């Protein structure tokens, strides 16, 4: 890591933080640089205080920093809130005409963005002006930015492109003309790095498409809407039926209907919506209907903090739905893992005819990160269903594996019933105690096969990921992480390693069926086990105890709706 720069762009909702960040991030990516960008936004459309945190390096970056080298403050409040986060030698870019600054010191760089924008043609260009100035400050070649602007505004016509190019240039030159002496670091483009930049929502959505999703029904709810809109945007191209349901109850039940017809079906939601799906999830359990459910967590209870992050639904998802039935629960740690996990979720849900949950959270959904191009040959959408059936086909045939052959209507002359009651092999209502026992046992027999499937935990021991064949942990202190905390805990381990501490991370992507054997093997030698979670109760620690008897020695918890930072964790060990 030869450089590691943090930028914060702060202002009100509606001021265009995202437009600035978009240009910046895309251009950095085109330069082969690694970026990591998190959005902190309020539950409102205009006003308030939002900000975007961007980290840039020539090596992969996995989390945000509390302080920043550069602050772009779009209003006075942003200066007040964030000026102390910029150390000496840092830069604070602001518009001297719209933003009041008390006693500016030499970190402050006034750029009259609004005036420059008006000069170039229109005040709405001020975001492009800012982007130009930031690029100049970072000493990034203007050419890539120009290329990006051309692509980005292609649909809007020549005039818009022209004006934005001008604005970019104006911002760039204004900076050079007035602040040439400013320079942070040697940012070197890594042009032969073939990177993609993707956020968690897109990674799950992209995975769903690669996993053969054919039907999505959902109801909008932050922070889950991103996955829904990503897939919906591609619906025509990928032959996907996408429907905005009237409520989450309809969403899950629509998905189950489509699943009955033979679709790879999914739904996306967040806390309150998940709760409304509880009964439908129980239906999936007894009907043995494959369905993929993405739950993007936010802090609760109820409406809670609608646009912020949390990991509070873990134990809930393990038990959601009345009655008992097996399920998959995944919690990927980074976009690449989310992509593959989603494909696996479709395949495994199909293979075992159980619901598969993917737990993400606001931090994960909205965070952009660069990654190597995903290898699309690694996983395929594979259906495990036979394609021919005899006329005495039994939907719920008792089998050794617990899995019955699954047919769809019109695959032959047979008929079948999918049923919400306890049922016979034919799907008809039964109250017979023995049949009931057989059906319960059949459903739970699947767990044996499910346990062996995709989803071993990742043991991160210093710079390298230990493959799952690595059978025993080596570190004295092991941090437990699940879901989105992969990155920040990984960087914590890196930091502590440099201090010669014997530390590792054990990250769980699959939480159910719980990888008991692996957890025990990796944790056996540890002197100290610390769980790192975005909730109050240390839920993963509870699950670990119930599943393995292993008790954690410490909990590092955060439940204020904001993501962890390495600094926060370090302060607590």
């Amino acid at each position, binding site marked *: 890591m030869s450089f590691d720069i943090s930028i914060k762009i702060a202002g009100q909702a509606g001021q265009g933080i995202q437009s600035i960040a978009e240009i910046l991030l895309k251009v950095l990516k085109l330069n082969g640089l690694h970026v990591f960008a998190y959005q902190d936004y309020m539950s409102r459309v205009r006003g308030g205080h939002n900000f975007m945190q961007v980290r840039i390096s020539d090596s992969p970056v996995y989390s945000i920093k509390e302080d920043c080298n550069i602050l772009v403050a779009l209003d006075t409040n942003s200066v007040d809130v964030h000026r102390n986060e910029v150390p000496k030698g840092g830069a604070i870019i602001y518009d001297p005409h719209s933003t009041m600054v008390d006693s500016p010191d030499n970190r402050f760089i006034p750029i009259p963005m609004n005036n420059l924008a008006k000069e170039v043609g229109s005040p709405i260009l001020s975001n492009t002006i800012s982007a130009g100035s930031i690029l100049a400050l970072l000493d990034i070649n203007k050419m890539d930015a120009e290329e990006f602007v051309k692509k980005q505004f292609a649909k809007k016509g020549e005039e818009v492109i022209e004006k934005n190019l001008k604005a970019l240039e104006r911002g760039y030159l204004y900076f050079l003309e007035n602040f040439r002496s400013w320079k942070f670091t040697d940012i070197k483009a890594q042009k032969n790095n073939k990177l993609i930049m993707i956020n968690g929502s897109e990674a799950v959505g992209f995975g769903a498409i690669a996993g053969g999703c054919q*039907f999505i029904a959902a109801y909008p709810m932050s922070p889950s809407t991103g996955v829904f809109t990503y897939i919906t945007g591609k619906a025509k191209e990928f032959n996907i039926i996408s429907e905005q349901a009237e409520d989450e109850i309809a969403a899950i039940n629509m998905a189950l209907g489509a699943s009955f017809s033979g679709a790879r079906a999914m739904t996306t939601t967040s806390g309150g919506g998940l709760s409304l799906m509880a009964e439908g999830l129980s239906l999936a359990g007894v009907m043995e209907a494959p369905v993929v459910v993405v739950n993007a967590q936010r802090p609760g209870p109820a409406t809670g903090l609608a646009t912020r992050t949390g990991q509070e639904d873990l134990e809930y998802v393990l038990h959601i739905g009345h009655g008992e039935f097996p399920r998959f629960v995944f919690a990927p740690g980074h976009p690449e893992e989310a992509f593959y996990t989603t494909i696996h979720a479709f395949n495994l849900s199909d293979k075992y005819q159980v619901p598969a949950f993917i737990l993400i959270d606001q931090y994960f959904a909205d965070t952009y990160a660069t990654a190597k191009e995903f290898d699309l040959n690694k996983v395929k959408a594979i259906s495990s269903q036979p394609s021919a059936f005899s006329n005495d086909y039994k939907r719920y045939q008792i089998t050794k594996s617990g899995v019955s052959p699954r047919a769809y209507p019109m695959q032959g002359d047979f*008929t079948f019933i999918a049923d919400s009651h306890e049922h016979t092999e034919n799907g008809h209502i039964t109250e017979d105690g023995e049949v009931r026992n057989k059906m319960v046992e059949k459903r739970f027999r699947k767990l044996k096969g499910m346990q062996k499937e995709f989803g071993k935990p990742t043991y991160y021991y210093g710079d390298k990921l230990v493959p799952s064949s690595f059978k025993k942990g080596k570190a004295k202190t092991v941090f437990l992480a699940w879901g989105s905390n992969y990155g920040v805990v990984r960087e914590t381990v890196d930091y502590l390693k440099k201090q010669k501490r014997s530390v590792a991370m054990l990250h769980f992507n699959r939480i159910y069926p719980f990888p008991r054997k692996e957890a025990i093997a990796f944790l056996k030698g540890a002197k100290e086990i610390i769980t790192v979670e975005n909730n109050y109760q240390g839920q993963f620690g509870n699950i670990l105890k119930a599943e393995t008897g292993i008790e954690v020695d410490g909990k590092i918890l955060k439940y204020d709706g904001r993501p962890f930072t390495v600094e926060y964790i370090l302060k607590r060990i």
Partner: protein
Amino acid sequence: MENTNPFHYEGELSWCPGCGDFQILKSVEKALTSLNKKPSEVVLVSGIGQAAKLPHYMKANGFNGLHGRALPPAFGIKSFNRDLTVLVTTGDGDCYGEGGNHLIHAIRRNIDITVIVHNNQVYGLTKGQASPTSEVGMVTKTQPFGVVSLPFNPIAFAIAMDTPFVARSYSKDIDFTADLIKQGIETKGFALIDILQPCVSFNKINTYQWYSQRAYKLDNNYDPTNRVKAFEKSLEWGDKIPIGVIYRSQRQTYDETLDRLGIKPQVNSQPDLSKVKSLLSEF
């Protein structure tokens, strides 16, 4: 009929002897038979209730889901496989009570399904509580001082929602009901058929006698395409209760929209890998 009825189911039926549900079952079988449908291309979707048991009592595909939630899976089933004939068999509690919100929005979507409501004005399966269509004053264990809420008028509601096909029938007239169901199936888009169905065990007010005295067939002069007139007709409930097609209209179906967009996924098909790969370039 038995011989030529491919939908006949051999097993036991658990409805009470004399229940109007038997008549509706016959009407459904008759309608489907007259349309030459094959059991394998028909899906009966239901929630929970006595009415909702019907899918178990016919030879056809069935999706017997949750109380109140018949319409959403019916949408999923039909939109994904538009070659299927999808019927929803539901109760007044199932469809107008627990499931009311889905009814509103299913009609708006206008997917091509036929919804048959066994309207016995009571909760049969759970032993006699008031349903959304129970008469004011009806005394039950959960309404010991009598029902106070205004009965839901499904016909007026459906007309206000501009439902393409709105009909009422009386279960006792099997041929008439079968014909309405047939028309409902033939209608492109959403068809709602509310069927007066005596519950001999729990509804001691709206009995065979009560319905028989009141139900009358709309005559040929009645024009179901006039929305305002149809609305006026829908308010008739008392000494006389009209049965027949009360309202008809036409608008684009959800099926047609999907066809227009060229969206028709196939079972067990893989996504086009080259297309999937091309998405990478957007990131």
